[in-house]
């Protein structure tokens, strides 16, 4: 005890020990298992044979799978851009509201989270389904369209579902950045002959980039790995890499290939993240 008191850094380590051990066991260990599995042969009924092979990694780049890979990237990027496009103005609006109203608006933003994500996604199915969905049925009844619109079972449906699901996650960090922004900086910009749009692009936008980066990451990463949304809204026709991975483990019983896909995806994500950080750093990030 006496020793502890004399060495405050020891106390810090003691407090840190619990989360560190927790993360080592429950986060690092599975990651390591996935890494090792990617280089092993598949077992007959799931599991692995302890024989080293590079076949799994090679198979990832098979056009059959690699195309899905690229499509998943495309969907994740489009989702991120749309949530950013919708989320930024929304965050801006909340941040500029009178302080008394801000909390209520943030609260309203969180309300969808009260309902299970699966149920909310199925609700979209009810709306979008090609022949029996509410939107198509209504439009047909009103005679606005002759044929049902292709709203379901395609990339459009997946992107719509992802944008819907991740929008609040984009808004919150941007809101936090904008809310911190000192109003007098904007006044200073206006005072120094900037129009309101110039003041936005030269002051507000660069100072909100940390929020934009955080929001984009929080949307891009889960979108890339999404499997519930494409499984439900893709209608079995349009799938993403997350669906292939889950299928390798649950359906095909090919754990090593599923692991290899996960590993490659994680590395791709890491690279994409690093590029993104590098790119936003250049646009005058506040350090």
């Amino acid at each position, binding site marked *: 005890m006496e020793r502890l008191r004399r060495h405050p850094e020891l106390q810090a380590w003691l407090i840190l020990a619990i989360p560190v051990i927790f993360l080592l066991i429950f986060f690092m260990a599975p990651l390591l298992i996935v890494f090792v599995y990617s280089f092993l042969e598949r077992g007959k009924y799931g599991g692995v044979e302890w024989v080293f092979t590079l076949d799994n990694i090679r198979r990832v780049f098979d056009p059959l799978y690699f195309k899905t890979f690229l499509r998943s990237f495309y969907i994740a990027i489009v989702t991120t851009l749309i949530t950013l496009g919708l989320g930024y103005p929304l965050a801006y609006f909340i941040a500029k509201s009178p302080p008394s109203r801000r909390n209520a608006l943030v609260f309203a933003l969180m309300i969808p989270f009260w309902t299970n994500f699966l149920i909310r996604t199925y609700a979209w199915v009810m709306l979008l389904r090609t022949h029996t969905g509410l939107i198509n049925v209504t439009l047909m009844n009103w005679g606005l369209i002759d044929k049902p619109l292709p709203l379901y079972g395609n990339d459009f449906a997946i992107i719509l579902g992802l944008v819907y699901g991740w929008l609040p996650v984009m808004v919150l960090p941007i809101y936090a950045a904008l809310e911190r922004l*000192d109003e*007098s*900086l904007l*006044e*200073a*910009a*206006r*005072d*120094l*002959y*900037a*129009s*309101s749009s*110039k003041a936005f692009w*030269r*002051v507000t936008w*660069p*100072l909100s980039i940390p929020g934009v980066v955080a929001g984009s990451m929080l949307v891009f990463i889960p979108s890339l790995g999404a499997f519930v949304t494409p499984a439900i809204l893709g209608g079995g026709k349009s799938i993403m890499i997350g669906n292939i991975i889950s299928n390798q483990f649950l359906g095909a019983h090919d754990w090593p290939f599923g692991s290899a896909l996960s590993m490659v995806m994680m590395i791709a994500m890491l690279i994409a993240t690093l590029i993104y950080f590098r790119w936003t750093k250049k646009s*005058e*990030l*506040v350090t």
Partner: protein
Amino acid sequence: MSETFAVELQDVVKRFGDVTAVNHVSLQIKEGEFFSLLGPSGCGKTTSLRMIAGFEMPTDGAIYIYGERQGYRPPNKRPVNTVFQNYALFPHMTVAENIAFGMQMQKVPKDEIKRRVDEALAMVRLSNMANRKPKQLSGGQQQRIALARALVNRPKVLLLDEPLGALDLKLRKAMQIELKALQEEVGITFIYVTHDQEEALTMSDRIAVMNNGIVHQVGDPETIYEHPADRFVADFIGETNFIPVKVLSLSPTIEVELGSGEKVTAGWAEEGLAVGDRAVLSIRPEKMDLLELHEAAKLKSNDVARVRGKVAHLVYVGTDTRHSVTLGDGTEVVVRLQNIHIDEEPWEIGEETIVTWNAAHARVLKE
């Protein structure tokens, strides 16, 4: 309008909801003048400044800059620049980028921007800081960059909102002198908002003393200090003794009666007072003197007031000593006596004394 003023406020009113921040203010600020808006917080001085800058629009009245009515003109279209209280330097830009901002917005040619940024940095003696971020500078340095960022645009009028408020006392004193020298050098009209009366007295050509959205008095520092127009100004600027009195006569001489029954004359009485009114007599502590009872008897002049009192306590403050004296009616006044003769016999607590002052220095003000 016979003369064109740098800035003119005509009967300006600003209301926020049901709060009136600025209440029928009219001011005329001359070209090249160092003009201060002085008053306690919430007096409307900052709101007035923000209306000149264009951050707030007047509810009523008109603002002219060089004879041009501003109306709803936005801040970026006004020939004024502001130095903000917290400096409001752009944290994501370097010092040089901060200074260049206004010129970039006005599409000044690049080589001219560079030249003027260098000049501005030299003017505030921070040339070696051009590539630093604002956060890497001290408070005083940030202050000078904020000044350079505004002045580099050569505004017709520079607006300063308590620019020295965040600095420590010593630095503030140094910056006051620097700022005043700079203003004389560049010859730009400065409108300076402060709650610090000493700062206003030190730097200004003229001062407008404000309270509760109203301008109480406009004048040069000496006038404001020596001839306060009303009780608020007398109280807010420097230190003053207020002695409750009753007005006995206003003309040809102004005479009042103290609570003790003693009668004295005064140099000036506020407009609107009538014979028989209750009022206060205002005299600065340094304008008063203390005499021994026998000395006072020798005084013959009618222009010198004599009032009996008793020394209540003494505070030695170096250059002078503050003598608190209780008058016959119980009013306590402060008399500041300079410590010139170290061998002089000091006053003692409880000692009977005569408080005297030159009648011309006493002003009768409304309660």
